[in-house]
């Protein structure tokens, strides 16, 4: 009984400072199999193709529905979510690597703290007076709200940072995702009040000026957020803000 197998070539690393190495695993094929499900099978039977029993592969995942952003990894060279990477739709053997734009903790597990730190830099929040009922919320233009909804889908997965040639140890660019989030808050009728603060933050080192328009971000965004469109809009806003900074003072 020759069951169909799927070969996984996984780049592993025992800790942040260890050298990476490759291990290969075979997983029984089944229809609809995705990369996370395959990694789960490896957990149940962590034996390499050479018959060696090894510690199961370490990676991060939560929702398996492509909304949490946790399971981003480099699959056959492309940064994407592993949960929706269907084995049927990608070339085999399937090569899994950690997204090395970020520090690797172990195997495919990476440290994306920098993305959350960047959200602090751009002041990604509404300055709410308090979590109580104070008044009716302002009415919003439904079209603007739809744009906000689109941007608000960003799940901080890091695909765009992994793909962006300007993000990495050689640069201080905070990356497309956090940059574009600034626009989300600038769109909100209350968030607007602090738009100049956010734009000024984007003008700082590592902000929007570090964008080199390679436009990889928009190609790889798993949520199809029109990142480059909003980056251009932010560029426009930032330029106007710069003029204001010069002439209003």
């Amino acid at each position, binding site marked *: 009984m020759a069951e169909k197998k799927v070969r996984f070539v996984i780049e592993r690393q025992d800790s942040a400072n260890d050298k990476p190495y490759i291990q290969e695993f075979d997983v029984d094929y089944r229809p609809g199999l995705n990369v996370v499900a395959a990694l789960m099978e490896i957990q149940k039977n962590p034996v390499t193709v050479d018959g060696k029993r090894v510690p199961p592969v370490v990676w991060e995942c939560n929702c398996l529905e492509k909304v949490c952003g946790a399971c981003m990894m480099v699959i056959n*060279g*492309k940064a994407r979510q592993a949960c929706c990477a269907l084995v049927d739709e990608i070339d085999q053997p399937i090569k899994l690597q950690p997204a090395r734009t970020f520090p690797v903790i172990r195997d495919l597990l990476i440290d994306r703290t920098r993305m959350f730190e960047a959200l602090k830099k751009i002041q990604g929040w509404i300055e709410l007076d308090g979590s109580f009922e104070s008044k009716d919320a302002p009415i919003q233009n439904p079209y603007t709200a739809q744009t906000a909804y689109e941007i608000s889908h960003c799940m901080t997965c890091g695909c765009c940072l992994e*793909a962006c*040639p*300007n993000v*990495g140890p*050689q*640069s201080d*660019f905070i990356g497309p995702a956090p940059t574009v989030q600034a626009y989300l808050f600038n769109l909100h009728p209350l968030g607007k009040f602090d738009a100049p603060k956010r734009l*000024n933050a984007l*003008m*700082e*080192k590592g*902000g929007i*000026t*570090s*964008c*080199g*328009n*390679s*436009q*990889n971000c*928009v*190609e*790889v965004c798993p949520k199809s957020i*029109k990142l*480059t*469109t909003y*980056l*251009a*809009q*932010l*560029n*426009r*806003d*930032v*330029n106007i803000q*710069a003029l204001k*900074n010069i002439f209003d003072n």
Partner: protein
Amino acid sequence: MFHTTFYVRRLHSLCGLFVLGMVLFEHIFTNSMAILGPEALNGALEMMELIPKPIFMGLEVGGIAVPLLFHALYGIYIACQANNNPGRFGYIRNWNFALQRWTAWFLVPFLIWHVGYLRFYTKGVTGTPISWELLYNYFQNPLVVVLYVLGMFAAIFHFSNGITTFCMTWGITKGPRSQNVISVISMCLCAVLCLITLVFMGSYLVR
């Protein structure tokens, strides 16, 4: 707070497109006279000699040397921030992004050689004026021709792609459609300028 990075980067963009763009156009325009023959080119070169020396020097320093040095030096800094990856992410814009930086790396030594040999050594040290005949002799060496064609192509691509990214950086083109239109137009411009370059470079060879 004064956002140095921001203003310097924007200045880099402005000076690349407008000042160095002008210089490039001037070079292509003047040199394209060679197509019409030695007299035309020499005439154009002599026309420039009519500009009073101090003003000409001023233009050369303020309009070429300073912007070029700034654009090149800061450009090196920018290029060093990129980890080009068109091999992994082979989208057109990413190729252009990488080419923008690769052409820049080529242009730095090329321009040092070009300015150093023709402007400083030939014109400055030996005092020989630039003329059709001088260039004709210079281009007898096929290596020089190849390097000059490559240098011109690199400069033209760098400039044309610069138009596209300039429009993004300044928020002029926002949506993908307008960005594509500008990109196509500037690539057409790139093709036309490259063609002109080929023709005037070729005009030396056929004579």
